[in-house]
């Protein structure tokens, strides 16, 4: 587990870009945190680093966005879900095909998602600052992505 403090939107985007640099298709990144904590901001930073030029916006209403970067990217948002039934999973599953997948509000899908590469948590510290927690079962990948980030922040 790595914990960092971001004091601006730009810092959050830069940190996300570092994480994005090690992502490959079929990697799943969950991004959790309450309203206004910067989930979409984090994912926008990662998508920019992955070569997405199109607007990266909240998919709360539409549930899923697709972007073309250096590989296909899916941006899911489960805010409106209270769980994920088999039928609901059937709708979400196609977004995981050969794509790097970011999932906002992943709590509803606990246990239903494919193995998660990185779990990102965002917490409000004050109006500008966020505490960012990144977890991964792959310690070496996590260190590789975020080495030096501590010193900078």
């Amino acid at each position, binding site marked *: 587990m790595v914990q960092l403090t971001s004091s601006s939107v730009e810092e959050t985007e830069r940190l996300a870009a570092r994480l994005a640099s090690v992502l490959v298709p079929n990697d799943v990144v969950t991004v959790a945190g309450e*309203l*206004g904590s910067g989930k*979409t*901001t984090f994912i*926008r930073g990662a998508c920019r680093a992955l070569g997405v030029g*199109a*607007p990266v*916006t*909240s*998919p*709360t*209403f*539409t*549930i*899923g*966005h*697709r*972007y*073309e970067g250096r590989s296909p990217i899916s941006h899911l948002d489960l*805010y*409106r*879900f*209270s*769980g994920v*039934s088999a*039928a*609901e999973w*059937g*709708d979400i599953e*196609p*977004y995981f095909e050969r794509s790097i997948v970011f999932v906002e509000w992943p709590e509803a899908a606990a246990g239903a998602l494919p193995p998660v590469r990185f779990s990102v948590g965002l917490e*409000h510290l004050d*109006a500008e600052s966020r505490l960012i927690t990144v977890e991964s079962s792959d310690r070496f990948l996590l260190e590789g992505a975020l080495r030096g980030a501590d010193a900078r922040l």
Partner: protein
Amino acid sequence: MILGLETSCDETAAALVTDDGHVRSNIVSSQAALHARYGGVVPEIASRRHLELVLPVVKEALQDADAALDDVSRIAVTQGPGLVGALLIGLAAGKAIAWAGRRPLIPVDHLHGHVASLYLEPAPLEPPFCCLLASGGHTLLLDVRTHDGFAVLGTTIDDAAGEAFDKGARLLGLGYPGGAELDRLARQGDPEAYRFPVARTSGLDFSFSGVKTALLYTVRSLHQTELAERKADLAASYERAIVTALVRRLLAATEQVGAERMAVVGGVAANSELRRSLPSARIAPLALCTDNAAMIASAARYREAIPYPGYLALDAYASRDAA
């Protein structure tokens, strides 16, 4: 007559529209109640709801118009953007009805559909005009020069305007989605009571995540009793901030492209403060603001019909940029 189908998000909808733009029927099987996450109802968001509803909705649209499938000359269906599985239900139904009736199919872009809600009788608006499209999923400024399309002048860089209203309502404890509820509460409040920052964005783009966070911090800073007392003021001030951003940019866009008229479409067009703030704008009729199939059939009037077997290869698209 054109049979329109719309299944891009929550609504399963079918409508019959004549070639000259008269709405003969407009059926929307609102699934909103099913999606109220905190309302204690079955909260499944899945395409199988569309699958169960699509044929009953088509039948009701035919009945309501006192028409038969034989009266339909072509089928129009939303191709994207939206939830792919949901779109595929509408597309598959459209293909099947087209094939069975030996009729051509017309794929329609959902956003073009919203704009085309303005082309329907009894008071069709003629291009050119500048259009604000604001809903739960989209916030766009459009330069509309012809009936068959538009150019995008600006878009939200984070949350959609309708989403900002719904999430603001959630922060105020009004449930989700609570945009309409927030609008009602705001009418009893003072829109000048709080200052919520309208984010500065470059050009004609929008940003609503900052104002949402500002509301969050204001709510947090208040004690529970104080919050209850000031709730209407918070709603009114929050609404004012969002509407101001929408209005300012619509006016700037209209001036930039030299348009003489402006229009507002999409679910947010139902907002009372927005309507009050834009007395000179054409605003879509309430029944055509939220997702519906009449607007899809309307847009189809300006698009080429695809004959068999060409339409069988049509696929859904999730995002506007992937179209």
